[in-house]
């Protein structure tokens, strides 16, 4: 049987009722539709809720300055801006590990988990993020968009590629990440 569950994001999606066709302002409508995806992308890259929310809000403010909310390019622009902004953050970020471990231990986030295991997981994520920093930006962006739950069509739009090429490039990106992680943590 084909596996289709593994890629699903762990960010809980806002239910569809948030997308209210009665919201008259186009920017508000776009925001309510796209914010969950934009913040999910940033969060997948950063692993830090507060930093992801900062990046998502910054992306929408930049969007407001540059594009009309009715533009056909709106969603693709937002997804692309989210992943590139978040990747730029990890490329310059040095205090990520401490913040992430603190986040992992926040009882509000994970009430019943084992603290030692959470710290270990946060350390693994930190290593993965270091590996991501070493990948070409486009390769890292492709991985993060896809693993944030975007469809192949959405990934293709955000990165300006043909939808038929997404599978091939994704497969290569996964191999590249695996090699980079193995190189960083030799057995």
């Amino acid at each position, binding site marked *: 049987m084909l596996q289709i569950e593994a890629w699903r994001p762990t960010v809980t999606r806002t239910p569809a009722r948030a997308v209210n066709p009665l919201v008259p302002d186009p920017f508000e409508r776009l925001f309510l539709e796209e914010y969950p995806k934009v*913040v999910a992308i940033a969060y997948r890259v950063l692993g830090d809720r507060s930093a992801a929310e900062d990046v998502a809000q910054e992306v929408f403010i930049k969007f407001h300055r540059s594009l009309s909310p009715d533009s056909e390019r709106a969603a693709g622009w937002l997804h692309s801006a989210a992943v590139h902004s978040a990747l730029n953050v990890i490329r310059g970020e040095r205090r990520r590990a401490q913040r992430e471990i603190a986040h992992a231990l926040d009882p509000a986030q994970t009430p019943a988990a084992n603290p030692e295991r959470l710290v270990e997981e946060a350390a693994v994520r930190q290593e993965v993020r270091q590996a991501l920093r070493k990948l070409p930006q486009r390769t890292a962006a492709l991985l993060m968009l896809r693993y944030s739950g975007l469809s192949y069509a959405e990934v293709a739009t955000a990165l300006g590629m043909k939808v038929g090429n997404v599978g091939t490039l994704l497969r290569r990106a996964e191999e590249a990440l695996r090699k980079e992680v193995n190189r960083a943590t030799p057995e």
Partner: protein
Amino acid sequence: MRHLSDGTLRRIYDEPLALTSVDQAHYDSCAECKARFESIGNTARATAGLLSVPGFTPEPAAALRSVQVRIRREEAARPPRWYERWLGRTSPRWRPIATPAIAVLLAAALLTGVTATGAAQTLLRVFEPKTITPVQVSSSDFASTSALLDYGEVKWLPDAPTLHQLSDATAAAAESGLPVLMPASLPKGVSGPVSFGVVSHATGSLTFDAERLRASAAQKGVHVNPMPASINGSKLIVNAGPALVEAWGLSASTSETQMPTLVIGQTRVPTVDSTGATAAELEDYLLSQPGVPPDIAAQIKAIKDPSSTLPIPIPKGLATTEPVQVNGVPGLLIKSVLGAGVVWQSNGVIYAVGGQLTPDQVLAIATSLH
């Protein structure tokens, strides 16, 4: 048949329905593709594990409020755009002089409403510009005229005019009802996308009220001549806009103060109707009020037919004017160190072209608009 590519196998791991029926038939009967799919699936599962993050629930409504606060703060802090500065400068500071020819250029489709109620017969057209004339002004003329007097009740139907910025020509034409005009060619130094500004059509009225004027003058401590009975109680109805402005040389960035390199503007000729006072009575009275510099009053009085002449303010010493012809229609060419402009009127529309250009360039653009 050829085996399925890695990309196809990777995609069907995520999106199984993307597999065509031909590919599906091959996959079902091909042990090698199944083995490769298994391996690709394992990598995908491992990657999902590596990239997993703890769950959290986004809060779009709270985030939206926060973003809106920041946007409002940015909008308030940014320097006004060139046309906003122009509008801001035009309305309050010019009101003393504007009051006469404009109590004239003051307020605008109330007329439509009045016509509909059958009251239009009693209206007297006091202003409908057919010609254009320069009026020399200097900034010091307005330095002492900060006391804005309340001449009476101002009403807008349905609302005061608003400015709407657009980036799309079709939308700008649809909203303004005016055709988007383009020059045959752009001179050197003018490039980039065009921004559009549409000022909505508006109708407003001013009902002169001697008592209100007296009270506001007393409050501000200025002396005013008492309002004649022929003016008191009469109503001016101003019908203005829509207007369409096209500007080149403005980038999308709002953080910098910018001057456009080329502006093409057009507006339907504004009209002012009065329910009682005549143009001459209004002019005599309003030009005699405090705050109207005597030389400007003299220049306006010198206009032969004030009810059909649009005065164009020209900064004294900074710009000169000369009459020109634009496609056979008389116009006014304005020359300054910073650039040039030309204003003319044709078929009920006032046109203006200006920018950081030479007079020849401005005239070439004006005559080639289509």
